[in-house]
């Protein structure tokens, strides 16, 4: 008998040891393969040995794929500047990864922006470095200089990747929040103008009655996603319905922010959803499904409408296009409660301070890195990075406009092709031109109006013609000038602060009570709603609102362009 337990123990020890050996072997392995993936080139390929090769290690805070070793754009960068990149993409949970990085002060040269890293002092201040070595970057960011400063200590740590605009760029693709509806529903109803929430649900109800199944699957009237951090599908609609732009969890009126989760105009929306649920329009599984199930439902073409951000379900829509179910793709509608309210869904891109690159305190040669970024922000390089190589990835027509052939267009939508022919991992987070080049071409291929039109599928062209619009964006009202302090959702609530804890708790309450309220019998709705409001009342919401207002005010004071 005694033998059994001892044997077990010995077995356990051996297992443990071999496991540790295997594990250490594994981690060594990943490092090796990481090295292999960087384009290694002999020094001889550099122009007459003039440029000195150097490698920049880059941490990208989201999942991604390594470019191929012979990627043509990275090769060009290496030939001109000597710089090659060693990318590390996020695998797994970002908080966990950052925790490990911070605990060991183990930072690569460049890292994408994150407030956790800023708080830990992982970035170096950039203002002097830019003043001294990077005239182009300085010029690029000139108008935004004050906005880029960290509210906590006034230094610039991150070079924002989006939101530095040259002119008012045309856009044809709307990425933001809206009430989405299948083109088939509008087509079936004779292309009506839809402005209010009530009209929207009427359309959906009628269509669902007429077509109870789509391609064999039961039609889903309205879909809601509320899963993990993708929770806005349930939370954010009320602020838009009263004509406010997306400020996250608050509505800002006259520079003053307050939460809207428990307000009457929020109740109105959820009560409507409650009625719609009773009428069988809301998906029964809406609140239990995960993101994959949500995407699968949209890809099946059976979902008539939902409130969401376009980029969030973009891949599902792409799958519909691949299946050639163009009538099942979506149009975003800027709905409001009644027609007296002007919709404010579309906004001007605001500077996103939580995104873009910062140089870490461990970088061996920050000057070299900033000089490289300074070179790459110049227009000739921007054209290469954003459009590609002329006559290879696009062509220039007689009027000097950049255009693409269908093949080139398809390439640009092909992930595998991009790994070898575009510097996507770099471009996405590096400082970049947005708007127009000096020759009037759009910086973004998809925003070039004639290029967009040429790329439209016949069905979409016909659909837009029926409405007399040039692009789906025309469904939205023109965006008014943003408030200086906009948007409130980018405010750092400061980890561990009362404001952040309150915000977490409020989100938890909403996740718990809103589904309950929507699924309740219509006669019970008020009861659940009152319980929800009283639970929110128990939280110290003021701490949260105060933090937002404090930063909004700070922004208004320091960001004003003098």
């Amino acid at each position, binding site marked *: 008998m005694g033998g059994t337990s001892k044997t*077990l123990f010995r077995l356990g020890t051996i297992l443990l040891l071999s496991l540790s050996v295997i594990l250490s072997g594994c981690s060594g392995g990943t490092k090796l393969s990481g090295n292999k993936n960087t384009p290694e080139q002999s020094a001889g390929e550099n122009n007459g040995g003039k440029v000195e090769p150097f490698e920049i290690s880059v941490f990208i805070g989201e999942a991604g794929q390594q470019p191929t070793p012979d990627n043509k754009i990275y090769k060009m960068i290496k030939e001109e500047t000597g710089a090659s990149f060693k990318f590390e993409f996020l695998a797994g949970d970002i908080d966990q990864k950052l925790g490990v990085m911070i605990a060991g002060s183990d930072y690569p040269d460049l890292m994408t922006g994150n407030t956790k890293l800023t708080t830990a002092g992982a970035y170096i201040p950039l203002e002097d470095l830019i003043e001294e070595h990077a005239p182009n970057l300085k010029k690029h960011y000139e108008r935004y200089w004050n906005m880029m400063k960290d509210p906590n200590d006034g230094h610039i740590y991150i070079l924002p990747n989006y939101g530095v605009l040259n002119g008012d760029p045309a856009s044809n693709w709307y990425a933001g929040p809206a009430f989405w509806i299948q083109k088939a529903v509008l087509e079936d109803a004779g292309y009506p103008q839809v402005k209010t929430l009530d009209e929207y649900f009427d359309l959906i109800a009628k269509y669902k009655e007429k077509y109870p199944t789509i391609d064999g699957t039961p039609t889903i009237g309205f879909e809601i996603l509320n899963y993990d951090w993708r929770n806005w599908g349930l939370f954010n609609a009320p602020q838009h319905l009263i004509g406010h732009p997306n400020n996250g969890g608050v509505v800002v009126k006259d520079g003053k922010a307050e939460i809207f989760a428990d307000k009457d105009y929020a109740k109105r929306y959820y009560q409507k959803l409650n009625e719609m649920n009773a009428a069988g329009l809301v998906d029964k599984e809406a*609140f*239990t499904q995960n993101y994959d199930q949500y995407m699968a439902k949209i890809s099946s073409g059976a979902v008539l409408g939902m409130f969401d951000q376009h980029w969030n379900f973009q891949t599902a829509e792409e799958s519909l296009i691949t299946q050639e179910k163009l009538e099942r793709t979506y149009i975003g509608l800027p709905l409001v409660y009644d027609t007296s309210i002007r919709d404010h869904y579309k906004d001007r891109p605001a500077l996103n301070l939580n995104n873009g690159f910062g140089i870490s305190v461990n970088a061996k040669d920050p000057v070299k890195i900033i000089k490289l970024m300074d070179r790459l922000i110049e227009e000739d390089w921007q054209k290469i990075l954003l459009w590609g190589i002329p006559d290879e990835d696009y062509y220039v027509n007689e009027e000097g406009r950049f255009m693409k052939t269908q093949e080139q267009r398809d390439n640009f939508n092909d992930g595998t092709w991009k790994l070898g022919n575009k510097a996507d991992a770099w471009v996405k987070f590096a400082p970049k031109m947005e708007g127009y080049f000096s020759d009037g071409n759009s910086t973004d291929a998809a925003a070039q109006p004639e290029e967009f039109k040429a790329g439209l599928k016949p069905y979409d062209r016909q659909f837009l013609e029926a409405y007399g619009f040039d692009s789906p964006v025309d469904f939205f009202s023109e965006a008014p000038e943003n408030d200086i302090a906009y948007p409130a959702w980018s405010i750092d609530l400061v980890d561990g602060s009362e404001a952040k804890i309150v915000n977490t708790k409020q989100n938890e309450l909403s996740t718990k009570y809103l589904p309950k309220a929507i699924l309740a019998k219509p006669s019970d709705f008020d009861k659940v709603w009152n319980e929800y409001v009283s639970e929110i009342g128990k939280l110290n919401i003021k701490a949260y609102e105060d933090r937002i207002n404090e930063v909004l005010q700070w922004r208004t004071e320091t960001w004003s362009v003098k």
Partner: protein
Amino acid sequence: MDETLTKDRTVRKSKNEKKMTWSLIKSQSQLIYMSVPLLAYIVLFAYVPIWGWTMAFQDYKPARSFSDQKWVGFKHFEFLFKDDSFLQVLRNTLAMSIINLILGFTTAIILALLLNEIKKVFWKRTVQTISYLPHFLSWIIVTGIVATSLASDGIVNDVLLKLNLIKEPIQWLSEGKYFWGIVGASHVWKEVGWNTIIYLAAMSAIDPALYEAADIDGASRYRKMLHITLPGIKPTIIILLIMSIGHILEAGFEVQYLLGNGLVVDWSQTIDIFVLKYGLAQGNYSLATAAGIFKTVVSVTMLLFANWMAKRLGEERLL
């Protein structure tokens, strides 16, 4: 053979017990050298990290030196125990853990007993392989499978509808009362085959003569299971039980996190999820550490208790 060895050892031990001489150390130096890496391993990976517990009593800020940290005493423990939802979270953790423990043990032992009765090696292997394969799937995949099969058009509802047991598809994941059961069942499906292996190994060590003797006495299959096989694997069961009781506050994290939603949050949130929300996601590493210490203290207490119980019952012990 085993017994004589131990006797031999005790004799030698008593002879040399009093004098720990250099010559003794020298003569055993190879043994000592061999144990150094192991000791170093344990010190480095099991004892040095305990130093990190100091974080629980500070307002820990990363990337600052130890002397720069602010000491706050038991603040984080207070936050834990004063929070309304913590009690609920504790209840969920314990409940799911105990369900997993009981279900895990009974199903594994029953499956092992049944497998042990199969005489055709081919069938035995087939059943075993099929039942332990899910062990190699990660929870993210398993929860994906679970969520899909429990969907309103999933296989579970399909089967129940076809059998006319229900009239309408049940929304399994939207009712708190089903949640613990779903978690337990998922655990069983994933781990039952794997947990069976060790019992089968223990069963193979039982002397066949016992079965033959029982046959002669005219014992039935069930009698043999009850009086030979089960007592034969009892030490294994007890040891494994003691070891699992130490993990009583680890009901898991992935399943509850991935399957949970707003409607069942009162039943699905475990300590680990709570810590993730209010500790790691908030950059509040001190709170996470405090919760970790709490869990460790409970685990060690439970382990010692179970061990003591085993001793009282005259059973095999771990310590």
